[in-house]
């Protein structure tokens, strides 16, 4: 068997296979279709080898007196099996390594460990939030016993402990795998969790005087294989098996962590990180993760509002009104304030709208805040890169504010922003001839708007964004916009059609297609070609 230099030969359940050097044995077995159950092992963390669930039999070729492997009659190396079972999570593959992943000894080990893990576990699955995505449940089905031999009292431990603002601990459910401890040490760099007490009384605890208050604390909930750590936010809100999972991205900062939106019947219940090793590994920050409640909040705009209207207007009326209102102004009396929170498709249509109106006064509102060196970017706009690429980020925001103040600018189209937070005053907005807002939340600007066009939140629409590192990624619709709200790109398209009379865009794919034809960075791409993990663009970010 010829072996490339960076590959090694490994025998898994009697079959010889090749793996790259440095592959973890547990991963190699998985790739060979022999899944090894595990609790403490996590591919992104160090391997403590403490749960003992991944025990397998291991052996090496027996060497003859000439230090060469002895061969059996079939010409295959004879294996010297190690009598003790070995953990597969802390071992890299090596030349000639042989493993048995399903031998009687291995099965017995797994059965034994499963029994040990369950004897002091409360078995409160009916009221446990982890139910449905619990490794203890899953591996019980596959490797556990049907009945219990345990006749003693279970160990009592603290329950319902708020160990941080967002994380709740049930120490009785904990199987002490130490994933959360290692995550806080190795990824969040906030070594705040640890074990106290000994033996069966061992308990996860927060350092005295501290809280698990890191902005990454909810990742411990994700990686907790059981229901010991649960999200205080998501707890008891929804059984996980009812959740529809939609692959999307987080829109709370420029990093664009890949996410799964968990929703049911037009409500988002949670966001969890989705693995993308070019962006967020398997983590995301608490801020981004929980930044979805506003979709269902009191401030949500759900109806069209025309100032002075006596009755509820319809979308065609609203669009027609907007078009005629804008047409009343000269081209340099109109400005467009777009947003770095808009998708590329929306930004592109906004720039087309600006072109149709003939105005060069367009910009986005920067949103900066403290970032960190893990995931959270100081640019809180998820798509500043897209705005730059599509010519919406011009740096003319203060000039526009100046124009409004001086009265030379008389009409504004504002997307997703509150202008009173970026240099415009209430009175200035009040005196505008037309203030058309496209957005999802009521704010001071929408209060003064002549026309409020309710739009869709990140979980309610499709589109693409470019993160701070130039990666083009796709967001997907998990739920429908509420009430009258529509997807932003449709609103902008309708405005554009009403103003120019042109047409040709029926679907968001068409927007991207047009955009890709005009913007060289998108050449050859389409929405579907972006894929679930995004595409790296060759951009230079200003």
């Amino acid at each position, binding site marked *: 068997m010829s072996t490339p230099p960076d590959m090694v030969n490994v025998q898994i359940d009697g079959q010889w296979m090749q793996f790259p050097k440095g592959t973890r044995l547990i991963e190699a077995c998985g790739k060979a279709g022999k899944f090894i159950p595990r609790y403490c092992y996590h591919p992104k963390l160090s*391997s*403590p*080898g*403490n*749960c*003992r*669930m991944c*025990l397998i039999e291991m052996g090496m070729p027996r060497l003859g007196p000439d230090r060469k492997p002895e061969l059996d009659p079939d010409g295959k190396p004879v294996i010297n099996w190690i*009598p*003790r*079972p070995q*953990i597969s999570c*802390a*071992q890299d593959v090596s030349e000639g390594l042989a493993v048995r992943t399903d031998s009687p000894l291995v099965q*017995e*080990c797994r059965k*034994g*460990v499963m*029994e*040990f*893990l369950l*004897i*002091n576990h409360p078995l409160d699955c009916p009221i446990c939030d982890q139910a449905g995505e619990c490794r203890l449940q899953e591996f019980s089905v596959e490797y556990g016993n049907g*009945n219990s*031999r*345990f*006749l*003693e*009292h279970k*160990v009592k431990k603290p329950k319902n402990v708020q160990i941080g603002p967002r994380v709740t601990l049930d120490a009785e459910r904990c*199987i*002490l795998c130490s994933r959360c401890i290692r995550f806080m040490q190795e990824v969040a760099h906030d070594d705040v969790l*640890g*074990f106290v*007490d*000994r*033996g*069966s*009384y*061992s308990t996860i605890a927060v350092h005295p005087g501290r809280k698990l208050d890191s902005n990454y604390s909810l990742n411990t909930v994700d990686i907790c294989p059981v229901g010991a750590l649960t999200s205080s936010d998501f707890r008891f809100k929804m059984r996980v098996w009812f959740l529809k999972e939609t692959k999307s991205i987080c829109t709370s900062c420029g990093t664009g962590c890949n996410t799964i939106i968990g929703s049911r019947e037009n409500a988002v219940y949670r966001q969890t990180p989705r693995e993308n090793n070019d962006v967020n590994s398997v983590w995301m920050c608490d801020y981004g993760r929980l930044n979805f409640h506003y979709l269902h909040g009191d401030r949500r705009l759900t109806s069209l509002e025309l100032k002075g209207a006596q009755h509820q207007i319809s979308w065609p009326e609203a669009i027609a009104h907007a078009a005629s209102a804008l047409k009343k102004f000269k081209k340099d009396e109109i400005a467009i304030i777009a947003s770095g929170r808009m998708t590329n498709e929306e930004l592109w249509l906004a720039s087309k709208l600006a072109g149709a109106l003939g105005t060069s006064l367009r910009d986005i509102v920067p949103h900066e805040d403290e970032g960190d060196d893990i995931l959270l970017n100081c640019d809180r706009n998820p798509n500043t890169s897209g705005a730059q690429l599509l010519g919406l980020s011009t740096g003319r925001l203060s000039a526009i504010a100046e124009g409004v103040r001086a009265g030379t600018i008389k009409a504004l189209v504002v997307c997703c922003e509150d202008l009173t937070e970026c240099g415009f005053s209430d009175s200035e907005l009040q005196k505008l001839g037309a203030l058309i807002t496209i957005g999802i939340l009521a704010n001071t600007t929408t209060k003064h708007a002549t026309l409020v066009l309710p739009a869709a939140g990140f979980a309610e629409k499709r589109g693409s964004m470019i993160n701070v590192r130039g990666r083009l990624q796709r967001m997907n619709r998990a739920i429908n916009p509420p009430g009258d709200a529509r997807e932003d790109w449709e609103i902008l398209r309708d405005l554009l059609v009403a103003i120019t009379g042109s047409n040709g865009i029926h679907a968001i794919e068409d927007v991207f297609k047009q955009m890709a034809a005009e913007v060289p960075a998108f050449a050859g791409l389409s929405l579907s070609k972006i894929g679930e993990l995004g595409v790296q663009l060759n951009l230079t970010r200003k």
Partner: protein
Amino acid sequence: MSYKPPARRKPHPKEKRIVFQNIDRDGWSSDIEPYLIYGGYNDLRKAVTMKPADIVNEVKLSGLRGRGGAGFLCGVKWGFIRPDEKKPVYLICNADESEPGTFKDRYIIHQDPHQLLEGMIIACLALNVHLAYIYIRGEFPEGARILEKAIAQARENNFLGKNILGTGFDCEFYVHRGAGAYICGEETGLIESLEGKRAYPRIKPPYFPAVLGLYQCPTIVNNVETLCNIKHIVHMGGAAYAKLGRPNNTGTRVLCVSGDVQRPGYYELEVGGVTLGELIYDICGGMKPGRTLKAVIPGGSSAKVLRADERFKIKAKQPDGSMGEKEIGIDEIVMDFDSLTAIGSMAGSGGVIVMDDARNMVWALNNINEFYAHESCGQCTPCREGSLWMKKITARMLEGGGVWRDPEVLKNVADNIAGRTICAFGEACAWPTQSFVTKFREEFVGRAAKPLPLPTSPEYMPEQLITAEDPVAT
């Protein structure tokens, strides 16, 4: 000087006192003066004239096996340290003597600390160690105080510190007190503890101390008695030392005898110099009046128990010189590493626990189980959950709540622990249960007569199994 070493309490004639030569001398103290007058640190003076490789070689020649419990060859362990090692090498003296039934290291530290220091300094010379630690268990505050004082005295006399005896070799010792945990005696747990963490034993591979030990540097961890022997190996020469004891079981060993014998205590004997029968009936004066031998735990509480009427098949040389099998009784067991391993137990830490016919084996096992359930570090699943489970079963049996399945479950739980844990604690807590339940099955079955509680009863409480008809006192 005309200092005459004080007379010592007379050891048993069969004893061969080398490491314990100064123990129990009248008027002897842990100070450096008597030690110096009695030839102390002369072996260090000899060692500084030797090449480090030659010292290591003498240790290899001596065949010295570790006295802490595992009986690993000391010379082989030292041989893992490469002479051209670039990282600092650390030596740690494991003075966390915690195995129930073992009490030798405490006497060495309390009465002859300089012997230990001399052995350690020689080891440091041999292994090019400039920083060594004595990890002493938290329950030995007096021992720690004595060691601190001894280290200060050794430093004053230039046996420690900068430029030892003018050789240009620098070496410093620190005493580190544990906080009271058995697992700190496991060498990688000890290292973690010394690094300031919880004493969770490390996984091997990759964390073999000689490769990735203290602060990820090569580290040698040796028991107190082992390190004392180093001094005597340098004194006698490795080959001469190897003549003591038996092949592959060389030197002397302190056996700590406790339990139901007339004269419990410590006895330094050539390894394999006596049989278990000689140890109990001759050296220790036999069983207490009117009592007969029931069981012996030969190597600290984790060693598998031996039953008095047990017969063992061992390999033995036949009269014609060929190897054959021979059946022996418990009295004929030679007290060395290999013989005890051959009969399915171990020499362990040298703690010999003798039990007479008045002992209840369920009680005895529960006592051991309580210890291991309390001392399990809790890091890995089988030991963490299994040790407490076994204790709860034996405790319930003792209180009269044993159900018929208990002996089988006990044995099976122990089987599910042994060999499946990160460190040897798994075996340590499983072996007693495996051996007690198997060898004294009738006693365990006798206390496990009740039927199983109905599995359907949600109100079930373990207490309902316990009835006051036969509580056990012992």
